[in-house]
């Protein structure tokens, strides 16, 4: 994947956690892009086709979500329960993981632990090799995107077949996913048709760009793979600690194919994807589909517990992945980011995501949650770390919080990660100096009033137009597209001092 940036030093600054252990080395894998967000956004904003594709797709899904959420009169209560269940999971995570391990093992499954992405990939590759297979079918999984599993398997001579339609489009297009739920959301039907014509062997050259025809081409392309695959790799949407049950939520049936037909199933899952009890799923199976695809229920949800004789894979491996998550857990506010159930609602409502798309974020986790989770998982190494720019990729409009089914206060986490970004500076930057000076000026009324006098200068710049159209850098980023009003002749403070608030005239500013 072109956005990988493995060698980047990512030192977690633990200086204000004195006396506490270092929780985790930073996560590795596809969690960091090569350029800062504003630079990447610059390119993406110019791509008019991308803008059109994203605007259309996110608009449709926002509408669907709003419709099915409005149907439930207990939606808020479900969100509150979901949020509280996840908070409880975080407070008991190690115990619950041990309970999960015990139950999976008791039912004939094998549990593996991976400290980081490389270790997870190694475990999976070894397990595949042990079966003698040289290919695997895959269910869409963010965890395997995070670790870069496909590339790691390829290095071992193992071919990984993505079977989710959107993942297939991304894989065939030698592209990177740009959305958690619909990884090819940046592509339109005619682009997808071109990819299929170019990359699918035996495809009908008369293939039209109708979504049904394209879906049927994917069906034909993958069917033989499903029916012959010996090994499948999946992610998991939920794992139930008290029963050892795993769950995959999907639409196309590719998940069922992978979870059912092969002899061996390997599931890679982030350690946070737990719920304590079977009945807790009653909350999440309502929150997730309505928030993600905007349906009352997704077409297929599969649950399985270990190995069932005579039904499905007779060998089951569960790989539990840390890769920076323990560091996130150690942050009292930040651990809320681990509550995420990857529904993608926050992406779909985000006005920034809608305009730049997922690739601008660099990480496999884009959008509002990606803008906090990615730097939390990797740590921020300094002002030039691309992930240092992610928390600023938001106007803090708050639409993400309203949409989030587990009530993650993403705006607050963005602010906290901005602080982490600022605190990662080894030396003060120009911005640091400017804001520190402003803080000094603004914490005293005398100094503040004096600073306001400097605004008179602005009136000179504005001249007789009453408007400023061009300012020096960095304020040129403002005046590139917006005028600035000339400062008024009299500030509110001066007006009050002069009139005691009794004066209605003197409205002129010239």
């Amino acid at each position, binding site marked *: 994947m072109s956005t990988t940036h493995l060698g980047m030093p990512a030192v977690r600054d633990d200086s204000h956690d004195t006396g506490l252990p270092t929780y985790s080395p930073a996560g590795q894998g596809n969690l960091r892009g090569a350029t800062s967000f504003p630079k990447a956004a610059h390119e993406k904003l110019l791509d008019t086709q991308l803008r059109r594709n994203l605007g259309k797709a996110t608009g449709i899904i926002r509408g669907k979500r709003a419709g099915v959420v409005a149907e439930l009169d207990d939606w808020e209560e479900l969100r509150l329960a979901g949020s509280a269940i996840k908070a409880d999971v975080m407070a008991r995570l190690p115990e619950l993981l041990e309970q999960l391990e015990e139950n999976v093992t008791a039912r004939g499954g094998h549990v593996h632990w991976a400290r980081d992405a490389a270790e997870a990939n190694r475990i999976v590759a070894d397990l595949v090799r042990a079966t003698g297979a040289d290919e695997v079918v895959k269910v869409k999984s963010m965890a395997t995107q995070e670790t870069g599993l496909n590339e790691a398997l390829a290095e071992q001579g193992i071919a990984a077949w993505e079977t989710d339609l959107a993942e297939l489009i991304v894989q065939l297009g030698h592209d990177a996913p740009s959305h958690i739920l619909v990884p090819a959301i940046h592509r339109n039907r005619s682009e997808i048709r071109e990819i299929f014509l170019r990359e699918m062997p035996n495809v009908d050259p008369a293939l039209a760009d109708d979504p049904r025809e394209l879906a049927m081409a994917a069906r034909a392309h993958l069917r033989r793979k499903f029916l012959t695959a010996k090994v499948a790799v999946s992610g998991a949407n939920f794992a139930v600690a008290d029963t050892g049950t795993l769950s995959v939520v999907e639409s196309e049936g590719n998940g069922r194919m992978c979870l059912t037909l092969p002899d061996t199933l390997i599931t890679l899952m982030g350690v946070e994807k737990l719920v304590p009890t079977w009945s807790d799923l009653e909350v999440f199976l309502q929150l997730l589909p309505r928030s993600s695809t905007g349906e009352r229920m997704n077409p297929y949800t599969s649950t399985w517990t270990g190995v069932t004789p005579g039904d499905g894979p007779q060998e089951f491996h569960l790989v539990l992945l840390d890769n920076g998550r323990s560091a996130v857990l150690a942050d009292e506010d930040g651990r809320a980011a681990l509550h995420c159930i990857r529904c993608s609602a926050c992406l779909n409502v985000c006005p920034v995501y809608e305009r730049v798309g997922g690739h601008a974020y660099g990480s496999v986790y884009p959008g509002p949650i990606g803008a906090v989770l990615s730097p939390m998982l990797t740590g921020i190494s300094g002002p030039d770390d691309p992930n240092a720019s992610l928390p600023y990729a938001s*106007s803090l409009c*708050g639409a993400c919080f309203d949409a989030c089914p587990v009530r993650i206060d993403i705006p607050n986490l963005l602010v906290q*990660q901005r*602080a982490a970004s600022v605190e990662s500076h080894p030396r003060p930057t120009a911005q640091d100096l400017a804001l520190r000076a402003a803080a000094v000026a603004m914490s005293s*009324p005398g100094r503040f009033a004096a600073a306001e006098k400097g605004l008179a200068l602005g009136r000179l710049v504005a001249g007789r137009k009453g408007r400023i159209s061009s300012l020096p850098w960095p304020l040129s980023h403002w005046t590139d597209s917006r*005028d600035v009003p000339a400062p008024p002749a009299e500030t*509110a403070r001066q007006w009050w001092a002069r009139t005691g608030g009794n004066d209605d005239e003197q409205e002129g500013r010239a």
Partner: protein
Amino acid sequence: MATCLGDAMFPQAVKGTVKLLRRLGHEVVFPEGQTCCGQMHVNTGYLREAVPLVRHHVDVFEPVAHGEWDAVVAPSGSCTGCVRHQHAMVARRAGDEALAERAEAVAGRTYELSELLVDVLGVTDVGAYYPHRVTYHPTCHSLRMLRVADKPLQLLRAVRGLELVELPDAEVCCGFGGTFAVKNGETSTAMLADKMRNVLGTRAEVCTAGDSSCLMHIGGGLGRLRTGVRTVHLAEILASTEASQTPAAAGSAGGVRDEPAEAQR
């Protein structure tokens, strides 16, 4: 609470608030020690640097917590939001629990203008007159941090002479976002373009909102393109009466004036 932006750049919103509240029979004081709530620092990640600003704000406005004043009002959803939802967090993060508690006491009596009018004072018809075609942009922080919901619309509907037109996709952010507008200027502009398209589609002559900052952004874009649509703070509209509808007062822009300044004389 005049807010630093209101004080320095948009005194009309502050004056409008004062005039309106006095007209409704309330006593208004302007604590001269006030400076800035620290929102820019907080939202840019300078949480440590924001601590003195929070402390100063609490020092200046603490009389409200002791019942000396009944309420603190600001003609800004985002500044009110910062006081109510971030001041205590900033103090706690710095380990100053005492400051956090004082900040919470002040925050508990701090209101955005439409909240004060509708919830605290119980008025929706403030006796205003504003004969213009107006569209209202609900700013994100008033909408989603403070949940003012349709209170500003209730107030606007009661204004005589005012023709209120609904703004399509009103709840989508205008792209301001404080330092976002500078740090991610291009994305901010792309968001602004859509907001302007919707504003222009309403054929309104005035776009109003409860935050001078967002209006500065929207007005800056509308002005740059010479669209002939002006931005006016909600407080100014609510402060207007038949008596104040002189040509100059009616055109006092909250964002950027389109007319050359001398035309205002």
